[in-house]
């Protein structure tokens, strides 16, 4: 995927020419504080801008299919439909499967995202699952679309730390197994650093720094990046390592 | 720490915004006209609402009788104006009953406000109960209270008129919009003005109340 000079505006301009590139199999982190425009960038790529906002400039190119997962799965899943059926519905649409076949496929995907008691869970409703389970369901929903690129909008922010770790591990292994490209948005530099090869720092709708995670963390150029780093203590290992 | 963000605004700014809200302007204009007419009815009514002219019953609207006459020859326009003043007793009765629902909503809103952090902060900062109540809570609840009041008055008016129509309200010969309509319904298909025009008076007042309520809600950004 490649973004060049993306501008998004509503009543005022919110993104002022953001550029970003993700290669095949790469994992790129997008960090910044709330309101920096990270989620907006992802939404613009997917064509899912909220009411009243439009892309006013720049280009977005995606080579292949892109899917997205979100922050607080409780509100991002239809509360009236069983989770298994929700994933199955996507399978039906994407792969044209029959109802029965799509249910089977949904269970397979549940296994891929490491959900235990798949059959039981599939018949539950979103409010009956834990946060971590719901996030995995969202992930299964995304994988059902057989994407080449996975956009992650702060998927771990609403989770406990231990569950966070599990989800990150899951993402890493999925990336390895399927050659998925990832764009991971977070305000937490530590989390991003664990998962991503490269990091892009966003502030007030502009890219202020970008580069390999290792470099950005070791030698930050922009004072804002430095502030973000200082807010993390202690600094965990970089992508590729395992302990912090 | 500022706790007055939602409180009293400079009145000039408010007035300017109020004047630019079409609903509010139209609504208050209507209400003012209705109010003036109702109050001045005894003075400006062309005829005595009770005086009958049996030979001239059910006359269509004309220069002499703008709204025509009813079955007893009474001038409808004068009766409509007189009925506008209304019968105090019945409105009071309704208000006593409707007060409860009204109070409940206000109470709920106040409670919600109380739970918000800034109230505790103000109290913690040493402000007395009275200060918090009048300086902070009241300005936040007042807009909602006023707008709801409009709706309440409207509902009460409609209910009273409906009761009058059903024959359960004000007794004759006091003119009341409701009874006028029900008395006139006999003539609906032949002399449509007898029941319809008093009805228009009701609707007009109601629309005035409704528009004012909506306009106020717009100005105070409650919608």
């Amino acid at each position: 995927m490649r973004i060049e000079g993306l501008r998004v505006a509503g009543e005022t301009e919110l993104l002022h020419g953001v550029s970003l590139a993700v290669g095949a199999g790469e994992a790129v982190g997008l960090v910044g504080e709330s309101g920096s425009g990270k989620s907006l960038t992802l939404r613009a790529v997917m064509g899912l801008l909220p009411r009243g906002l439009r892309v006013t400039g720049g280009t977005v190119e995606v080579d292949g299919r892109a899917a997205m997962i979100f922050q607080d799965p409780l509100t991002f899943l239809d509360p009236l439909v069983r989770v298994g059926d929700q994933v199955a519905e996507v399978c039906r649409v994407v792969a044209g499967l029959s109802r029965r076949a799509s249910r089977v496929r949904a269970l397979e995907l549940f296994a891929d995202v490491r959900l235990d008691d798949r059959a039981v869970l599939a018949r539950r409703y979103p409010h009956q699952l834990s946060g971590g389970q719901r996030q995995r369901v969202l992930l299964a929903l995304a994988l059902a679309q057989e994407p080449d690129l996975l956009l992650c909008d702060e998927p771990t922010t609403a989770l406990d730390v231990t569950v966070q770790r599990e989800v990150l591990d899951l993402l890493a292994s999925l990336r390895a197994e399927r050659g998925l490209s990832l764009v991971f948005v977070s305000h937490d530099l530590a989390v991003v650093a664990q998962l991503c090869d490269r990091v892009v720092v966003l502030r007030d709708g502009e890219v202020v720094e970008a580069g390999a995670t290792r470099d950005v963390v070791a030698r930050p150029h922009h004072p804002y990046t430095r502030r973000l780093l200082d807010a993390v203590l202690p600094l965990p290992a970089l992508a590729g390592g395992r302990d912090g | 720490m500022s706790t007055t963000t939602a409180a009293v605004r400079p009145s000039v700014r408010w007035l300017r915004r109020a004047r630019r809200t079409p609903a509010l302007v139209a609504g208050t204009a209507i209400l003012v006209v209705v109010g003036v007419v109702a109050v001045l009815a005894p003075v400006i009514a062309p005829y005595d609402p009770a005086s009958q002219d049996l030979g001239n019953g059910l006359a269509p609207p004309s220069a002499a009788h703008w709204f025509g006459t009813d079955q007893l020859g009474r001038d409808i326009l004068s009766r409509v104006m007189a009925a506008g003043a209304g019968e105090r007793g019945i409105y009071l009765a309704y208000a006593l009953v409707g007060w409860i629902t009204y109070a409940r909503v206000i109470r709920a809103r106040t409670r919600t406000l109380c739970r918000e952090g800034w109230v505790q902060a103000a109290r913690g900062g040493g402000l007395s109960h009275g200060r918090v109540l009048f300086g902070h809570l009241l300005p936040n609840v007042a807009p909602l209270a006023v707008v709801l009041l409009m709706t309440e008055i409207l509902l009460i008016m409609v209910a009273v008129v409906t009761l009058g129509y059903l024959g359960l309200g004000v007794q004759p010969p006091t003119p009341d919009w409701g009874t006028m309509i029900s008395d006139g319904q006999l003539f609906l298909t032949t002399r449509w003005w007898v029941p319809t025009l008093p009805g228009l008076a009701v609707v007009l007042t109601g629309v005035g109340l409704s528009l004012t309520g909506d306009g106020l809600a717009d100005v105070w950004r409650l919608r």
Partner: protein
Amino acid sequence: MRWVGRSLLSVVPVVVGVVLCVFFLLRIVPGDPAAMILGERATTASIEALRHRLGLDLPLAQQLSDWLVGVFTRGDVGTSLVTSQPVLGLVGSRAGLTALLVLLSVVFTVLIVVPLALLAATHKDGVLDHLVRIVPTVGMAMPAFWVGLILILLFGVQLRWLPVGGVGTGPGEPLRSLVLPALTVALGMAPPLVRALREQLVEVLDADFVVTLRAARLPSWRVQAHVLRNAAVPTVSLLGLNIAYLIGGTLVVEKVFALNGLGALLFSSISSRDFPVVQGIALVLALAVVGVSLLTDGLVALLDPRVRTA
């Protein structure tokens, strides 16, 4: 199942409350049934005699308990003071028409409110939205009966399409005669409902799960299906909450269109202070309102799993 039991329990106080209120209110309001029956020329003696015969001179508490006992043991809701007919029979003969009118009114209300609210919500802040929002503002100012009169003028007289009074006996009756009355009730209920439903729908339309569905590139109609199912929940709830007002509206409209339903019976009984009849009708209406509330609660529980597992 436990939930059903709980709901029934919450229903009882409501019905009891209504019945008690009506009972006492009737006797507080000035006006003596015996005097009304005998007319203006009656002597005090004859009025007293009639009161005694009708049991009106018994202490209030006893009147109440007698009546309650009658209701629960014999299903006897009393006898009309005026006509000496059993109240149950009187009510029964009129209830059918009223029930039909209520049903038709509900259908019309849904047909009017849902599309308008949907239109406003999907075009939020647009021209259509503002147009639709005028409806509640103006509509709330129009008493139902006045609307009925206008409809009569329009459809009955000018266009001569529909009957305007009473119930005819031709083909399509009694439904044909109920069309205008039901429309009147529906128009009366529409303003506040349109406003309330529009707000609920806006919430549903902006919901996060819609984003997920669109992100998954589900076809438009599938997304709409999800949205509509979610929107049905507040709609049904809203209807259940407002059923009491709707029934009240039908009672008034019956008078406008000279329909011989419970409304006509109720108002004439109030005027003549026919206590048992008024009490009987109040009981029936309370049960009806409560019944519909339970039904809608059940529907919501069926639709929304969050309510079920609470």
